[in-house]
């Protein structure tokens, strides 16, 4: 995973609440078996509208998405994170993220920064008044700067540490192999296994 410390890029205002993962990447894109090529599917139904924000310059070159509350609800598809990243996004700002989406983002190095809704509104106004305004997201400082607006954000400290260091979760867990084996020793014998029953 590529480490994330600070990032500066064009902010994209998305004044919508409840942007679910079916909108971020519709289901038919999920038939792919690779991890790449999802950028075309990003918001593909909304992008059929020429006026959609990502179809207009300078937002088409944006890398910081500033979204309404409850971003990433619905399906667990990590393809939503891949699509955002492959389109060029490095961070999403919102006042509220769906749990699974936030978890998936943290695994992949897409920063989900949780701001107060009042700060989101100020950033939207700034971005709409001066399209193309760059947003700087500083993870160690937990701060966002956009024009005259400076705001703090919240992110899980452990996730932030992993992002800043670009650490792979599985390698970290495998260091605790003995703990896992120890736990397995004391699991009750009646717990089911998939292979035990007559199939």
């Amino acid at each position, binding site marked *: 995973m590529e480490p994330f410390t600070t990032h500066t890029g064009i902010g994209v205002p998305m004044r919508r609440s409840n942007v679910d993962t*079916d909108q971020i990447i519709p289901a038919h894109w999920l038939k792919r*078996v690779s991890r790449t090529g999802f950028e075309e599917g990003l918001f593909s139904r909304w992008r059929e509208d020429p006026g959609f924000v990502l179809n207009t310059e300078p937002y088409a070159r944006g890398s910081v998405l500033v979204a309404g509350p409850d971003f990433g609800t619905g399906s*667990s*598809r*990590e393809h939503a994170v891949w699509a955002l990243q492959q389109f060029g996004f490095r961070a999403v700002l919102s006042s509220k993220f769906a*749990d699974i989406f936030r978890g998936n983002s943290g695994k*992949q190095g897409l920063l989900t920064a949780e701001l107060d809704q009042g700060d989101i509104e100020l950033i939207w106004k700034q971005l709409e008044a001066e399209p193309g305004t760059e947003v700087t997201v500083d993870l160690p400082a937990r701060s966002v700067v956009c024009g005259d607006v400076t705001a703090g954000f919240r992110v899980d400290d452990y996730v932030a540490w992993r992002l800043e260091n670009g650490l792979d979760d599985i390698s970290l867990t495998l260091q605790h192999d003995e703990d896992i084996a120890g736990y397995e020793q004391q699991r009750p014998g009646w717990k089911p296994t998939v292979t035990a*029953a007559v199939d």
Partner: protein
Amino acid sequence: MSDTSGMTLAEKLWAQHVVRSVDGEPDLLYIDLHLVHEVTSPQAFDGLREKGRPVRRPDLTLATEDHNVPTTLGPVTDLTSRTQLEALKANCDEFGIVHHERGHRGQGIVHVIGPELGLTQPGMTIVCGDSHTSTHGAFGALAFGIGTSEVEHVLATQTLPLRPFRTMAITVEGTLPDGVGAKDIILAVINRIGTGGGQGYVLEYRGPAIEALSMEGRMTICNMSIEAGARAGMVAPDETTFAYLRGRPHAPTGADWDAAVDAWRQLRTDDDAVFDAEIVIDGEELSPYVTWGTNPAQSVQLGQSVPDPQTAGDDDAQDAARRALTYMGLEAGTPMREIGVDAVFLGSCTNGRIEDLRLAADILRGRTIAPGVRMLVVPGSHAVRQQAETEGLDQVFLDAGAEWRLAGCSMCLGMNPDQLSPEERCASTSNRNFEGRQGARGRTHLVSPAVAAATAVRGTLSSPVDLTPTDAPQGALV
């Protein structure tokens, strides 16, 4: 675990599965069962191969084909779907995982087959790369959806690093009126707390109306916990749970059964436990719920009308409501019962179990569906399909004019050929009414199986009380 007084059910399960707990880090939680399907797994298996990692516990891992499979006989003609199904089979063969492919009697929607095979048991941690994994919480399991990175993590380590959830009690008091069921309870809950109301929580459903539900009903409720933003929903196991499990292929037997039931009986929220949040719903006041908008919280009771966006709350909520009405092609003030549909979908991990099919068949028996309406009946699993055929339900559906299909996720998410056309309107027993969910520009109204069946007969959103015993096919009451 030595002293569990004052703990909620979710906290007990968490404590029983902690492998490692260190200040400042997430807890490492052991996973008892990992369910795998074709859509969210191929990239995870690729990750294992790249790093040369094996699957730690193939014996705690089960794969099935569900999201992509056609529900008609014959080969998989969609090339990308076929590639994905073949990838799952190849991955399972390579890593030694049991795999239920099309035609296998254990094939079906992942959340239907787990319980049906007796693999889903109280007190377990269960994960799957699918948000509706919350379904399994109906057995008093801690079950939640994960992303593909986490799928890889569980395959490699049989654990997940997680922060503890907060707990919310949802108590449903009283007795449900006739014609009101589990789907109406959960739609009412989501309406009440919103699509984000459950974020960060495990929901525990309790109270007399929940205890009176069958396992199928409890699964319907836990299934849609994610639509309220909660990763998991649970119901404490009881005699209903034990009776459902006894004798199933993977359920314990003999002395193991007794030991298991003894352990399962401890899985209750202590009387002195404190939830982080609590809500109470009066079951007596419920009536059938239907959605009018494009998220599952945008619902009203069937007897009401499409709401005016101006009553939707703050500016953003009003804006969202207006956008939803435009998408749905609806006008505020229209009585819900006057909304005509083009299609009815009965199925999915929410309502594709045998009890759902029986309920709908009872309503459709001797009736025919309205002209111009197509109805798809898609059993949740191969076993559900066989059971329904044994009971003659397939003939009831066919006689009524519905299509009787093979098991799969089907029109719930439209990854296979079962999709709505643009602007086609559907009464659906599934779980999401998102834009385009059932097909590009398709319009979804989430309903219960009873409402789905009555709607199919009348052609407009209806409940069984709208039908008379001699109701004509065209729907004489319209």
